[in-house]
């Protein structure tokens, strides 16, 4: 349970921390870290307006998207506490839970019949299709490394194997999770969440028609998605058997660091040209394949 609560707490601060980092790097004071939460509360008090061209899909999409992310959180362990739900192959379930949320947002966007949202939906579908292998190959590498097939088992045994190259592997895993999280959450350099230019948007343009309550749900789902990737990252760099109180502090530190890294990445570079995005995403997959191959060779070596 502690893990679940911690994910929710870090999700609350996540967007605020990114914003604050970007403000400070640009020489501004910036809003407080809780500002996004306050905005969400304001949105929750408002009603939703639905376009007359939309149907039921459009209306249920935000709820499904949020629900799928919450379910995904339940699969991630914290320290030596197992996840609430864990079974063999649960990371595949995890990947497709997030995919189903995205799928509903995509068809919700198509439901509006707007040419902008159609464009955004097609880009989102394309790019998330490209990032899927990166995540699955990375998890396959973890499985091969530990010989286990669920988040809980993998992360609780990851550091016990005692091989010296575990550290390098955890750094590669950390890096790949950051990249996956950035792409999944439509941040720089693939997408720009701050832009007002509909023609260049990916994720933002798909949710243009949502307002009030539904918009708040979508925002919260994005924060939670960030936090759940943050907790995966935490799991690959902190051994599970450490003291629980130390774990709690470390967890919040890793999450804040993640947010600050995102903020810094977004401050000092421009986003990609749209047709460079596939190459960029495939590079992430390529690194995952590289890690996979290295572990495969090492494994064969060890068995000899």
């Amino acid at each position: 349970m502690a893990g679940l609560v911690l994910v929710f707490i870090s999700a609350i601060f996540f967007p605020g921390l990114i914003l604050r980092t970007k403000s400070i790097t640009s020489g501004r004071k910036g809003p407080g870290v809780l500002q996004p939460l306050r905005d969400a509360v304001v949105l929750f008090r408002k009603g939703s307006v639905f376009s007359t061209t939309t149907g039921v899909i459009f209306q249920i999409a935000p709820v499904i998207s949020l629900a799928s992310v919450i379910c995904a959180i339940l699969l991630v362990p914290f320290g030596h506490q197992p996840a609430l739900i864990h079974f063999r192959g649960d990371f595949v379930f995890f990947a497709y839970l997030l995919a189903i949320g995205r799928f509903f947002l995509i068809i919700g966007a198509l439901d509006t019949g707007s040419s902008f949202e159609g464009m955004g939906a097609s880009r989102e579908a394309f790019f998330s299709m490209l990032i899927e292998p990166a995540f699955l190959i990375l998890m396959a590498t973890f499985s091969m490394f530990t010989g286990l097939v669920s988040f809980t088992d993998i992360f609780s045994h990851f550091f016990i194997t005692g091989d010296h190259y575990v550290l390098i592997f955890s750094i590669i895993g950390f890096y790949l999770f950051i990249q996956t999280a950035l792409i999944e959450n439509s941040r720089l350099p693939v997408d720009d969440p701050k832009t007002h230019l509909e023609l260049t948007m990916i994720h933002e343009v798909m949710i243009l028609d949502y307002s009030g309550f539904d918009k708040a749900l979508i925002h919260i789902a994005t924060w939670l998605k960030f936090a759940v990737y943050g907790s995966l990252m935490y799991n690959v760099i902190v051994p599970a058997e450490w003291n629980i109180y130390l774990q709690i502090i470390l967890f919040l530190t890793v999450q804040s660091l993640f947010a600050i890294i995102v903020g810094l990445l977004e401050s000092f570079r421009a986003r990609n040209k749209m047709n460079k995005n596939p190459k960029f995403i495939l590079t992430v997959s390529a690194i995952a394949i590289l890690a996979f191959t290295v572990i495969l060779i090492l494994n064969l070596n060890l068995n000899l």
Partner: protein
Amino acid sequence: MSIQCKEISANPFTISLGSIPLMDYNSFYSQTVQMMKDEPVHCVAYYGVEVNDDLQLICCLADDNNHNFRIYSTMLPVGSNPVPSISMEIPQLQVYEREIHENFGLFFDGHPWLKPVRYPHDRADRDSAMDNYPFYVIEGEELHEVGVGPVHAGVIEPGHFRFICNGEKVLHLEIQLGYQHRGVERILSAGLNGMKRSVICDNIVGDTSVGYALAHAQLIESLAGIQSEAAIQIERCIGLELERIAVHIGDTAALCGDVAYQLGQVVCEALRTEIINTTQFWCGNRFGKGLVRPGGTNYTLDEKVAVKILRVLEDVGKRFAAISDRIYTLPSVVARFEDIGTVTRRQALSIGAVGMAARTCGIRRDVRWSHPFQTYRERSFEPELIETGDVLARGLLRAREVSDSIAFITGLVNDRRGIRDRVSGPDYNLSLMPGSFALSLVEGWRGEICHSAVTDRDGNLIHYKIKDPSFHNWMALALAVREQEISDFPVCNKSFNLSYCGNDL
């Protein structure tokens, strides 16, 4: 065939209406084609004036290399039969012919598309409205249309962009303007007093306030036969260059914003504020409204202002040089700007591009150099040129023009400090020469601004014509985005930063 035209080398100039050579349309046609085949010759004004019951088409060409104007005209009876279109041979005249058609219902035979210019619908057709405007279509299974505007997400003016795309690739862009037609030209020729006219000219195009006011002021002075004092000429050019610096830096900020480069955006935004606040310190308005007036000025450049301008420019110059160096060497930014929205030299020449759009294609076209006005007449000026014609070129040109302008103003301010005479205040009651045609060109930050006017027998303005640089350059944008990704349109658009209200008038 002999060419009949009046050649004038002054800018601004006033000539009597009767001295403009008049010819039949056929010689008008062949003469225009013959002269405009020459690369440095481009059209600065071509419009109709109703004289009694006839329509007089006045054409004024500017020759950049010989630094002069050529002016001639033809007379057609109102409601005359269609006349052959010159656009087929000289494409840059297409927009002028569309405007003549829109205003007088004259048809041009062979003109590919007499699309409305300053109205979002066909003015002659009572049933046509914005809602049923027939956009250009291309049939195809795999093609789709994307319509953007006229209400945009950003804080910009109204204009509709209709893209025909194949996937992410743009095949065609149709730009539909005219949503804020205000009838500026009609108001200016409606017998207002001089002060009201000046105030209107300050506000025709909000981001080029000084440029427009200057074009108007020197036109009126030329019509009145006076020349402003040396001190005032210098002050006006300082105002014009300050405006150029402010807008160029602001555009650099916006370009960075469009590619999500936060550092460049915030630094340039801050620098722009420094400049416009200096303009405010000088004349009480950040955009320089009220700074330029015919005959004189209300806000003379005293020692306090001069010191402030020099101090701010030195500071901004250093900081902008540092940030623009950073921007145009950062790989992720350069990757977004390079080879995007390219306009070729040939395209730019054929559409008659002016200002930055021309200079980034390697065309030497700058009024400050070709037809110098005010204090530019006494100073040597070399326009900056870049050959590549892409977004990067338009960004770099801005950076170079900013540093040129800073150096130029520094010289001007020091010259101004050497003049001790008191300057005169504005004169709104100048009496204008009767029966005259006058034209004035100014190089605003966007390009050449042309104001021209016709007076009647009593010296009243009966016709006032304005040509914004965007009038030609919108076509450059439409050409630039062809075969580009639709997601690159915003950054292309911003790199031109064309005027909607300057087109709509």
